[in-house]
């Protein structure tokens, strides 16, 4: 069951009118290594996790990823708000505007729609957790690219927060792998 809280996890700000960034940021909204992929991957893998601990970690990190999805949407929303169509066209957002206006949609930077092909759920705890660790590193890497792409200190600040969360999540998935291994090893003795 999910409950929504009417606040962001982090106070996401935009200081400059860097409209192009909206196009790049969408990578972390509907792209292969983005927050939607992360949230849906963890939420669906959790059903076939073997221990209460692993179910908790997958559920909780998955929930946090929905909060991050909201932060990305907020940055894009703020970057596009009130921007005239002429400027959107000039900054390379004409295609996006055609299909979505200033709406926020689940696609990658090229406009390709999100697909469940970005995620996997194998009912194999080592495969699933290893994929999760890889996903966190890919997300961290994408955030670093995005940080390099902007000189807006406010956007950089939010991206640095999101990047650090990926590092923490990687640690937790790694620990979960260890805990699950302990669990299976303890079952061998009776």
């Amino acid at each position: 069951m999910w409950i929504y809280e009417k606040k962001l996890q982090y106070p996401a700000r935009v200081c400059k009118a860097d409209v192009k960034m909206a196009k790049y940021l969408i990578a972390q909204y509907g792209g292969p290594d983005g927050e939607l992929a992360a949230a849906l991957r963890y939420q669906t893998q959790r059903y076939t996790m073997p221990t209460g601990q692993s179910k908790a970690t997958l559920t909780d990190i998955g929930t946090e990823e929905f909060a991050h999805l909201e932060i990305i949407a907020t940055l894009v929303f703020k970057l596009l708000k009130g921007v005239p169509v002429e400027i959107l066209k000039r900054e390379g957002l004409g295609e996006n505007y055609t299909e979505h206006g200033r709406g926020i949609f689940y696609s990658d930077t090229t406009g390709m729609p999100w697909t469940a092909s970005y995620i996997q759920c194998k009912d194999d705890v080592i495969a699933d957790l290893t994929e999760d660790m890889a996903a966190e590193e890919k997300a961290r890497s994408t955030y670093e690219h995005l940080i390099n792409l902007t000189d807006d200190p406010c956007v950089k600040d939010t991206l640095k927060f999101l990047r650090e969360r990926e590092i923490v999540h990687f640690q937790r998935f790694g620990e979960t792998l260890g805990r699950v291994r302990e669990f299976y090893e303890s079952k061998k003795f009776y």
Partner: protein
Amino acid sequence: MYDYNINYNLPGLKLAQAYIPLQKYVSSYPPEEAIKKGTIFPELDIPYIREKMR
């Protein structure tokens, strides 16, 4: 000829397995600082330093 009796000297560790050390919680940043850093744990606070020539 392969030598099958290689001593890897890896206590508790096995081949073809990934291991991440368990974090130990000792201290935390105060809340107002923690949210800015993106974690409450100093040992997990690994800031991004942009590589040169990229």
